[in-house]
């Protein structure tokens, strides 16, 4: 029953992004019929002696009751995991052939990832960019971080053209520890250029995950008559014949996707193609499955 709430059109009718994220994650987890303890760092790692300044929420009070000593419970992820989402908010992400635009879908996806991370007490951060860095929420696991992230997501709107260099330079400047970097974009740029820009992040030990968000109309255009198309970012105009859109364009977009996927895997990155016409849990399921394999 909860599966139907993962449909993008249903999610679009939920105004608040935190509810969207909760609906997606809880619905998704409820559909797994197994333990939700996978993905980030839910597994117990060690006890550490309390030192002043530590967050009292993590004190194991059972141990204190037995030993009258304060120990903190530490989990594996707390030591090395921070999720940073780079959200492409360029003009092309505002394209929609149905009710949910690519940017909306990307927001749902990012919110779900943040909700998952917060649920497991992992640090999470956000960088919203188009041809410049438009918003930054530094990674943190503190109380209220989820609200800040979701608020930043709410504010994100389709902007101008895409430039991958600036957000990654910013990321490199502020990336102090290894973590997970998720890039959510439609990647309308030459794949070699995209990968070249992201490679330094990978070299610093962080894991890179590319979420390639595309609209069904971009994957399978269904024109029945010649159309004058206007590029959402460059405003370039071009008259396109239906036969071309049905045949050659499809081959080209599939080639583009295949090239991006292959180059990403060669560079040790994860690549996920996200179709905004399909339920959101498919992307999450694939992502978490891969993450589980890595743990």
């Amino acid at each position, binding site marked *: 029953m909860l599966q139907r709430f993962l449909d993008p059109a249903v999610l679009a009718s939920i105004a608040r992004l935190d509810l969207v994220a909760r609906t997606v994650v809880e619905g998704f987890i409820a559909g797994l019929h197994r333990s939700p303890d996978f993905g980030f760092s839910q597994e117990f790692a060690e006890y550490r002696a309390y030192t002043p300044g530590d967050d009292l929420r993590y004190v194991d009070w059972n141990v204190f009751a037995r030993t009258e000593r304060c120990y903190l419970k530490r989990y594996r992820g707390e030591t090395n995991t921070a999720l940073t989402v780079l959200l492409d908010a360029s003009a092309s992400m505002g394209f929609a052939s149905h009710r949910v635009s690519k940017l909306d879908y990307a927001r749902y996806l990012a919110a779900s990832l943040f909700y998952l991370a917060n649920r497991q007490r992992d640090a999470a951060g956000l960088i919203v960019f188009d041809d410049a860095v438009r918003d930054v929420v530094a990674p943190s696991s503190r109380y209220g971080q989820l609200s800040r992230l979701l608020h930043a997501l709410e504010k994100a709107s389709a902007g101008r053209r895409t430039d991958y260099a600036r957000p990654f330079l910013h990321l490199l400047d502020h990336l102090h520890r290894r973590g997970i970097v998720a890039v959510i974009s439609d990647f309308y740029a030459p794949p070699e250029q995209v990968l070249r820009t992201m490679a330094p992040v990978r070299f610093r030990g962080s894991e890179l995950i590319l979420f390639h968000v595309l609209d069904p109309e971009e994957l399978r255009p269904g024109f029945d008559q010649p159309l004058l198309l206007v590029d959402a970012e460059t405003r370039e105009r071009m008259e396109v014949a239906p036969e*071309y859109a049905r045949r050659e364009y499809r081959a080209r977009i599939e080639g583009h996707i295949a090239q991006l996927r292959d180059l990403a895997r060669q560079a040790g990155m994860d690549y996920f193609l996200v179709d905004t016409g399909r339920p959101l849990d498919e992307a999450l399921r694939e992502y978490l499955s891969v993450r589980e394999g890595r743990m």
Partner: protein
Amino acid sequence: MGLLAPWYLAGLLALGLPVWLHLLRRRQSPPREFASLMLFEPHRESSVRQRRLRYLLLLALRCLLLAALALAFARPYREVAGVASAAGRLVVLALDDSFSMRQGDRMERARRDALAELARIGPDERVQVIAFSSTVRVLAEPARDHEQARAAIAALRPGEGRSSYAELARALRAIAQAHRGPVLAHVFTDLQRTAMPAAFRELALPDEVRLVLHPAATENVDNWTVEAVNVPSTVYAQRKLRVQATLVAFAEKPARKRVELVLDGRVIESRQIELSADERSSVEFVLPELAHGVHRGEVRIAPPDGFAEDDRRLFAIQRVDPRPALFLHEARDRRSWLYFSNALEASGLGAIRLEEATPERAPSIKPGQYAFVVLSDVAGLPGGLARDLRAYVESGGAAWIALGPASAARGELGLVGGPLESNGHDLPAFRTVGELDATHPCLEAQGRWEGVKFYRVIAADPGNARVLARLSDGTPLLWEQAMGAGRVLVFASTFDNIANDLPLHGVFVPFVERTAAYLAGLDEAPGSLVVDAVLPLRAAGARGVAAEVIGPGGERLLSLGEATASGSVTLRRAGFYEVRRAGGRNLVLAANPDARESDLRRASQDLLAAWGNSGGSAQAGALAQGERVRKGLWRVLLLVALAAALMESWVAGRYFSRPSEAT
């Protein structure tokens, strides 16, 4: 090249529709935003040009479809040499031999023109000669032997029928259908307006027929005629008669005419009358008391006008004694006789003299001497009378059976056989008439018998008889049954006012009068008819009994075979006919030409022109000379329109079909 209906070219304005639609479609495609054109290639624009070309092809096909339809309706034609199209053509020479062609030299002129036209026809062309009036007769079958056609034309004489162009058009349509090729019809006629049908569509000719009208009369002729003579055909009593004649002036100026009533060759009375232009007038004469026998009379106009043949109208009148009819009833039943005889007397039907009798008197009754016999609720008949009565009816006589208590006691219908289903006592109160066959002569113009109550009706099965009246519960009340050559009418109640109150209602008198006239056969004796009328000679099924018809010239019109088998005879000529019908009844009647033939005025020129153009795009003058003929192009244009429609469907189907999406 030319157009027969150029106003249909206005349909070309419809060409604007596809143009507008195509422009609209283009305007309906605004620029559409797409995420990125990175993967599109500018050089593919050539495909769009191909699309535009397809659009233009679609537009051209749609315009061609509409233009071809508009042009086809405009009926374009091209003129081709007549000689080239003469091969395989049938030339029909149609001559009008109606009564009006007797006027002046009309017939002579028609023959002369026909022979002249025949001389112009090429030796390879087949010629057919027909004559038409109210019917069409073939005088010479289609053949290249023009001598036969020439002889038929020369031998043709005017008849006395009424001309009908509708019949001619019907015949030409049949000829064209049989010939399966072009037909050129030359029609030689006086173009009477009364020959035109009420509906122009009856004159329509197929495209294969081209019509050329040759007028046999060039100017209107003033004419006066006796249109009708109103006089009874049979007189049963010694009394003076009024003869009313209607005169018509088909003339543009008034005239003073002498009108004479002639009887048996003797002028009885003469009147001077002023006849106004284009009006009818009536003249009334008084006939003296007539002697027994047949009298031949006429009303005529003197002096003769330009068309003397129609200046008189014949009529026949005969003086006979009333025919006896027998009313047979039980001695105790006086009421039926009282009501029935009084009703017949009140009706004024002098042709019937009613006699009453009771079964006790039966041995002395000879049914054959009566016009009809009424069996009013008779309990039973002596064996001899029953046998004689049956033989009388089967040989053409008539009987009328009324059923009442005495019949119910007998339990069967008697003369016609068959059981009675009830004695009539089971009616709870009374019933009224539910159904009445007003088309039967016995029940004409009598309303629905409203208010008539039937208290006692004897139910019987009428079998295959024609039921003329039923009660509201469906019980048959009156039915007619054939019996040999005669007829029997069964009334399931009585003529008194006990079983019903019919005798107390006004409808009883006409009911008795019309039924008596019907059974006596009085309706079958018209005084005069028009030429080409059909006169019935015998009742249906009465074969083997000879009939005889002697025509105006004293000749017998029926062969021996026809005399015993023919059911009717057509009166082809004007004059007096002596008829002896199969039932043994003799009569003399007069046949006159249809009065409409006396109107010699021509049909309007517009109507004639329209008829001349109704065939295969023919123009009368050009065709008469045989120089050039018009060949219609509408079929070609319709084929073009069909091809354009098919092409348009194919191109549009290819263009707009959406291929299945690969998922």
